[in-house]
């Protein structure tokens, strides 16, 4: 059947979160120390879910081993999201296994011997998922995809048939593939996305469409929505890495230091020098601390800006409780009242532009920019 033929061309290493197909990513490989550094974070995640379940420590270690195995093909900036997705998968697998054991208890079954049927079952699951995903495409989309990827028809002749241009056909094919990847993952994980926005967000991530991602508030959604957060990992790994953007996941004290170091490095690459580097690093420290103290987790994204003027933009985003009274939070005395301090007034004074959006119950996003002084 044709659908199966599609598997190799569409799925290859890009969609499967398994271990069979790998493509090495270019760029700096992740080193082992960086993986080991993930351990406290992973343990927190496992303990949050499993409490003092006897298998908790094993799951942490298993996750570390898996991440270590995969480190050649993970972009350094994706290491944390990858580890988080892996630990969630490892936990889910354990629950599934426990459920199966429960169901199989009446059979004579030696759990020490892996069931060869399991591996077969997995392949079957993937095949089914792909078939379901292809079934969710429009008829036209499906026809074009099969004609191009299976039958080898080129975009020009496809364009002639459709009365369109080769460029338009190629763009459409690439959107279709992006959609297929999303539907494949949803079918494989048997997830029905919890919100209406989920599919659009995943599609924008899959298509690496940054404009659409911004319109949809994709980054914020990935923080809030557990399903999309997990599903986006294989999709993000596929997207071309951007060397003008660095992402640091924030969930504990050490992340504050990581974020400000990353900010300093990016700012230096952008051309900032001397005291400006320290100002940026200090401002990042303040906003990252807000996330740890008030929102528990979030991320800091540091990006280089080309226009209208060259600069460094920091976006600190969380899905925490939000700030009810923004005006008060930005006033100076507030810090001392709140004990640990919100650090916002300080960060504002360190940067050139500062903007904060917060919705109670949904989270807070701080965007701040340092412009690079023109040299004369």
């Amino acid at each position, binding site marked *: 059947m044709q659908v199966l033929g599609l598997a190799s061309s569409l799925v290859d290493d890009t969609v499967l979160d398994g271990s069979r197909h790998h493509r090495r990513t270019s760029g700096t490989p992740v080193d082992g120390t960086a993986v080991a550094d993930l351990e406290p974070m992973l343990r927190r995640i496992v303990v949050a879910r499993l409490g003092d379940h006897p298998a908790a420590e094993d799951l942490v270690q298993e996750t570390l081993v898996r991440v270590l195995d995969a480190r050649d093909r993970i972009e350094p900036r994706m290491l944390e999201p990858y580890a988080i997705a892996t630990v969630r998968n490892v936990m889910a697998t354990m629950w599934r296994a426990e459920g199966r054991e429960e169901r199989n208890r009446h059979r004579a079954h030696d759990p020490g011997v892996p069931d060869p049927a399991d591996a077969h079952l997995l392949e079957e699951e993937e095949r089914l998922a792909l078939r379901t995903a292809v079934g969710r495409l429009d008829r036209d989309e499906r026809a074009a995809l099969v004609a191009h990827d299976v039958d080898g028809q080129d975009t020009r002749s496809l364009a002639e048939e459709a009365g369109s241009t080769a460029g338009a056909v190629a763009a459409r094919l690439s959107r279709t593939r992006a959609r297929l990847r999303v539907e494949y993952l949803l079918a494989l994980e048997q997830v029905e996305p919890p919100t209406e926005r989920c599919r659009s967000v995943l599609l924008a991530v899959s298509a690496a469409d940054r404009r659409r991602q911004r319109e949809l508030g994709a980054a914020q959604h990935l923080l809030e929505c557990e399903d999309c957060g997990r599903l986006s990992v294989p999709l993000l790994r596929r997207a071309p890495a951007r060397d003008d953007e660095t992402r640091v996941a924030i969930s504990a004290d050490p992340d504050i230091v990581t974020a400000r170091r990353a900010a300093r490095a990016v700012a230096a690459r952008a051309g900032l020098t001397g005291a400006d580097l320290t100002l940026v690093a200090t401002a990042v420290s303040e906003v990252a601390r807000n996330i740890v103290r008030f929102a528990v987790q979030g991320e800091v994204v540091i990006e280089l800006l080309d226009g209208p003027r060259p600069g460094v933009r920091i976006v600190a985003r969380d899905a925490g409780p939000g700030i009810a009274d923004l005006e008060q939070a930005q006033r100076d005395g507030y810090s001392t009242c709140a004990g640990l301090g919100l650090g916002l007034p*300080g960060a504002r004074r360190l940067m050139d532009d500062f903007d904060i959006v917060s919705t109670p119950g949904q989270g807070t996003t701080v965007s701040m920019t340092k412009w690079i002084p023109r040299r004369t």
Partner: protein
Amino acid sequence: MNDGPALVSILRQGDTLVASVHTALDDSEMVRFQEDLVRQIGEHRARGVIIDVAALDVLDSFGSRTLRTIAEMARLRGALTVIVGIQPAVAYAMVRLGTGPGEVPTALDLEEGLAHLARARDPGGGGSVR
């Protein structure tokens, strides 16, 4: 303080403790440093404390406040604290941030810090405190 290379060292020199921060500390490490130092002030009956922060590339609001807290706790236990080695860029950021060492005396480097302590202990011996 824990396994691995020391983040901070606290050395005793007569009745003065010299605490050097060797690398960027996160907040929990900063708090541990505070606890260690205040405990040692008591143990060694120190009269002077020097905190060398030359290795720090950032002193944000939390870092500054922790240093002020240490100095205040030391004062309550009878020891005078001097902070030394604040880098120029760090000093600039502290001014912009609106935080700073507050009333805690500062000095350029370890030598100046020790001289400051000596003057404070023996005001007749030359110069005045602050």
